[in-house]
């Protein structure tokens, strides 16, 4: 009996130390989450407004006034996949991977474009093989991104590759931060800026009219056009100058925002997972305490009855 209580005690001890760790991790994640959420919420209105304006400009401007506005037939898609640096965040990475996989599947059925992945986050490296796609670039991820300069290398690459024509569409796979308990993995198209495209979930329907139109106009996009030809909006000092500075900036902003959303989601997911782990540890400790007390009581009762039995035998 004595051996049994010892084993239970050891188990309780080991669970308590695990609980200590998960509790500490929960607290760290809570702090990080608070900071990430503060950043994501403060930039949200800017990013939303920027996206609205970009879409508005794309809708009301001549399609060829800027390379970032021109549509090409989609032969190759670049996917920016934003994962986390560490695991232990529940299904954070796996859910994102699932969504990405879904997108790749539907994209293949649609028009059979090749997909290449631009990856950020160490943890994504482990499960990237599931997607079975080429990874062309990998960027280090900062645990808490707070400045847009920190994501410049990635945004520059995406825009450059698109302008060069290596990719005909660029999407971002990220996790949208809805609230501390709910995060939704999403795929968002960043480039080209589509006419009448608002925020959307999953894959979009390829507009056949657009494709036909683009094919005939391909390559004309490099032409210099002045404000009068650019359509609805007036540009000061000139369409090309303004679009050149405004479009990349606002596209960068979208990628930056996606990273911020992912940051906030990651830390909230981890906090929740760690809280669940701590709760589970608590339950287990409680259960084991009962068993321990029972075993101890049983041992005592047995000893007493042995003593009483022994004393009775002497009389």
């Amino acid at each position, binding site marked *: 009996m004595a051996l049994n209580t010892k084993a239970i005690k050891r188990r309780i001890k080991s669970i308590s130390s695990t609980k200590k760790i998960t509790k500490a991790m929960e607290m760290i994640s809570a702090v990080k989450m608070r900071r990430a959420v503060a950043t994501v919420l403060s930039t949200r209105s800017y990013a939303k407004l920027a996206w609205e304006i970009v879409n508005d400009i794309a809708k009301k401007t001549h399609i060829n006034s800027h390379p970032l506005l021109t549509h090409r037939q989609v032969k190759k898609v670049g996917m920016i996949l934003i994962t986390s640096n560490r695991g232990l965040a529940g299904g954070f990475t796996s859910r994102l991977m699932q969504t990405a996989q879904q997108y790749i599947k539907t994209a293949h059925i649609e028009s059979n474009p090749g997909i290449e992945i631009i990856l950020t986050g160490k943890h994504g490296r482990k499960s990237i093989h599931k997607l079975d796609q080429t990874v062309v670039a990998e960027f280090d991820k900062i645990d808490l991104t707070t400045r847009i300069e920190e994501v410049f290398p990635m945004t520059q690459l995406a825009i450059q590759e698109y302008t060069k024509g290596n990719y005909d569409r660029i999407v971002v796979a990220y996790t949208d931060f809805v609230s501390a308990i709910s995060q939704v993995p999403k795929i968002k198209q960043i480039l080209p800026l589509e006419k009448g495209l608002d925020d959307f979930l999953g894959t979009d329907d390829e507009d056949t009219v657009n494709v036909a139109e683009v094919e005939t106009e391909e390559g004309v996009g490099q032409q210099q056009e002045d404000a009068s030809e650019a359509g609805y909006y007036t540009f000061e*000092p000139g369409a090309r100058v303004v679009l050149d500075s405004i479009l990349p900036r606002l596209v960068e902003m979208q990628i930056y925002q996606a990273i911020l959303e992912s940051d906030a989601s990651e830390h909230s997911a981890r906090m929740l997972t760690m809280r669940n782990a701590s709760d589970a540890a608590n339950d287990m400790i409680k259960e084991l305490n009962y068993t321990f007390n029972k075993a101890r009581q049983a041992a005592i009762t047995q000893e007493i009855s042995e003593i009483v039995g022994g004393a009775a035998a002497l009389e």
Partner: protein
Amino acid sequence: MKFQIVTPERVVLSDEIDQITLTTEDGEITVLPRHIPLVTNLKPGELHYKKSGEDFGVAISGGFGVVKDDGSVVVLADTAEHAHEIDLVRAEEARARAAKLMSEPRKQEDVNFAALQMQLEKALIRLKVGNKYRKLK
């Protein structure tokens, strides 16, 4: 007309106003109600707007200005500060610091120099806007 100034950090202003003057690359433009849709680059400088006869100044360090087809004006600025928010002492300190760093012998790359120039410019604008509207009161 509706007017919004938004920076990546916060919404600086969202209000109904009568007119607004922006510093673009080609010079100042004033936007009155029912302006045609316009997209423009903003230079670091002063932005001022009128609301029920009163003048307000905002120091801006670059960005974009958009007049939408519904007549509302949106300024997406890198940073923006109201004149009354500007701490003149701190702005002066920032200017002096930037100027000192710039006058130091060059051991640095051009990137640093450009960044410093930006800082100096920003500090100067803040000082200018801050001083101007302080005097008005």
